[in-house]
């Protein structure tokens, strides 16, 4: 965790952290981009790491949950890494507690947030509505936005951006497809010469 009370204006959920921690760009993200999550998301990461086996078949969902969660937790514990957490009060419970904790943050501390990044499309809509209700200028976007920040600042190449999007597409199925497709349509970066045909239209 970054020292003191540092908080960064990009708020990320559990599944976003796991997805980017499993990507080839995790090192660059934890080196260059400031991120904030919640104590509730941290607890979800801990639960994933405990409930899934380290020896799950490589590439399986339990494998990704285990190793992605552990990588994200290691970054949270590292003072030199710009990943920090805020405490959500009251602490939400249940299956969507992580997402709910982000929604609470948006309502309670809107001035501290510029972007909210979630893996779940319905969750993004729910938080977008919370933002609209408050008339705030907070953008709710898909996880490839973190890859885009690196690309936009010349920290990675177009190839690296495309490959990270391709990884996400393959791993996350329809969920990842929606996230990556929205990114490609929102910013017309052509990945057709880099990705296999089966990952592209």
């Amino acid at each position, binding site marked *: 965790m970054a020292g003191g009370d540092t908080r*960064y*204006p*990009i708020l990320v959920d559990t599944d976003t952290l796991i997805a980017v921690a499993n990507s080839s760009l995790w090192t660059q993200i934890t080196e*260059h*981009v*400031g991120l904030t999550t919640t104590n509730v998301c941290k607890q979800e990461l801990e639960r994933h790491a405990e409930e899934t086996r380290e020896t799950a078949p490589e590439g399986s969902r339990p494998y990704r949950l285990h190793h992605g969660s552990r990588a994200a937790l290691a970054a949270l514990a590292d003072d030199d890494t*710009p990943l920090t957490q805020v405490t959500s009060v009251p602490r939400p419970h249940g299956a969507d507690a992580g997402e709910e904790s982000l929604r609470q943050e948006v309502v309670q501390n809107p001035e501290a947030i*510029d*972007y909210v990044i979630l893996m779940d*499309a*319905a969750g*993004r*809509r729910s938080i*977008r509505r919370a933002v609209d209700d408050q008339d705030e200028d907070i*953008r*709710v*976007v*898909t996880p*490839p*936005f973190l890859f*885009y*920040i690196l690309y*936009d*600042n010349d920290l990675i190449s177009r190839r690296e951006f495309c490959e990270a999007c391709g990884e996400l597409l393959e791993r996350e*199925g*329809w969920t990842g*497809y*929606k*996230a990556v*497709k*929205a*990114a490609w*349509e*929102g*910013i017309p970066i052509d990945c057709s010469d880099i990705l296999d045909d089966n990952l592209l*239209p």
Partner: protein
Amino acid sequence: MSQESLDDTIKFRAGPLKEAANELDAVHLGGINISELGREGLTEMLRRAMTDDDKIAIYERYSAGDISEDAARVLLGEEFDLLQEDTEAFREATETDTSDYLV
């Protein structure tokens, strides 16, 4: 959905389905709209029959102009609108100075 597509008919052997629908229409207070139920029922079953891979293929076919937006909406429902919202949000997000978020 356009009026033209509403006028199209789908035919299948209804047999006892037709009898059941007519019976319900007769006993239900105010009757039932069999055509409306048929459209809603088929929409629901089409969506239920789709796998995630099917959804990806349908959206790709829509993007390539091979199927209409109306048909894509029947199959993808709210997911279709969520994708459009996400695209717009991503576009807006890339118009800001992203160097502000580097540490």
